[in-house]
């Protein structure tokens, strides 16, 4: 039975690492799998270099990275992630409600509470929701559109939040946020249409 030499095994390991497989345990699996595939081909009479290229062509570095992402997605504790986002959302909501109530009764500290609530919602809740939703997204275009969507929503929320505090910059923030959100919806729609067309 043909077995790859140490140098050849290291070469495969390096190629797997180059494909951005970060999970060390998965890397062991993939290196062994690729080596087995190459050895099988060599045993059938293919030359070593040709066998290696054939296998990497078949698997592809993009696919190796996708396996790493998929493994991360399946093994991640999604419950803890959702719980974290939920807690931040509740804190933001309580701050906003308290701030708003203080404002209605003209109590001191209303502006600070409202401001912190807005910032927690925009840079906490919405940011983590986005991370939970898109961190495993394989398409970089979708990731880019999600970032645009996030910046748009964050600006809109901060803008609308600051309107209550009568900040002069608030309207500009809300306007630019709306424009970015519009861009996000157009881009997202185009990507979805493109994806369904290609299917």
């Amino acid at each position, binding site marked *: 039975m043909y*077995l*790859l*030499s*140490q140098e*050849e*095994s290291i070469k495969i*390991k390096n190629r797997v690492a180059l494909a951005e497989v970060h*999970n060390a*345990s*998965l890397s*062991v*699996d*993939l*290196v*062994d*799998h690729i*080596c*087995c*595939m190459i050895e099988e081909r060599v045993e059938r009479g293919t030359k070593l270099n040709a066998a290696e290229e054939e296998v990497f062509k078949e*698997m592809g570095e993009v*696919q190796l990275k*996708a*396996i790493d992402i*998929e*493994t991360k*997605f*399946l*093994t991640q504790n999604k419950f803890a992630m959702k719980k974290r986002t939920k807690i931040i959302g509740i804190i933001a909501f309580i701050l906003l409600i308290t701030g708003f109530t203080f404002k209605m009764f003209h109590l001191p500290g209303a502006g600070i509470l409202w401001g912190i609530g807005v910032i927690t919602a925009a840079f906490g809740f919405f940011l983590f929701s986005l991370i939970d939703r898109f961190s495993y997204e394989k398409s970089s275009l979708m990731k880019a559109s999600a970032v645009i969507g996030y910046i748009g929503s964050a600006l809109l929320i901060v803008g609308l939040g600051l309107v209550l505090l009568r900040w002069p910059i608030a309207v500009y923030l809300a306007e630019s946020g709306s424009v970015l959100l519009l861009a996000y919806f157009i881009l997202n729609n185009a990507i979805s249409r493109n994806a369904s067309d290609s299917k």
Partner: protein
Amino acid sequence: MYSNELVRGMLKTIILQLLGEKDKMYGYELSKLVKDRTEEKIVLTEGALYPLLHKLEKDNLVITSLETVGNRKRKYYALTPTGETSAKEKRHELLDFMKTLKSLIDPQPIVLCTY
């Protein structure tokens, strides 16, 4: 070769079942066994196999052990007691599902009894 949609839902059952047949198996061995036994009608791709094996490990259904084979490390997967119970349950569920599916798509003609 069957479509991915058809196979995807049964992958966990297939893997648990095959791991139950031996003390331990490695990834390539599993994929080769499925390919050979099904005459290439079911192919376990690396993209489906390894994420699922890692998920099973995280869920404590399989345990792994590292061994050196030739000049590289090889990870072997084996069922845990929980995995063995799960494999039996999944097998039973799949057989029952196949029976139900058969009665659904290939119904037996109703025989009317006349006295």
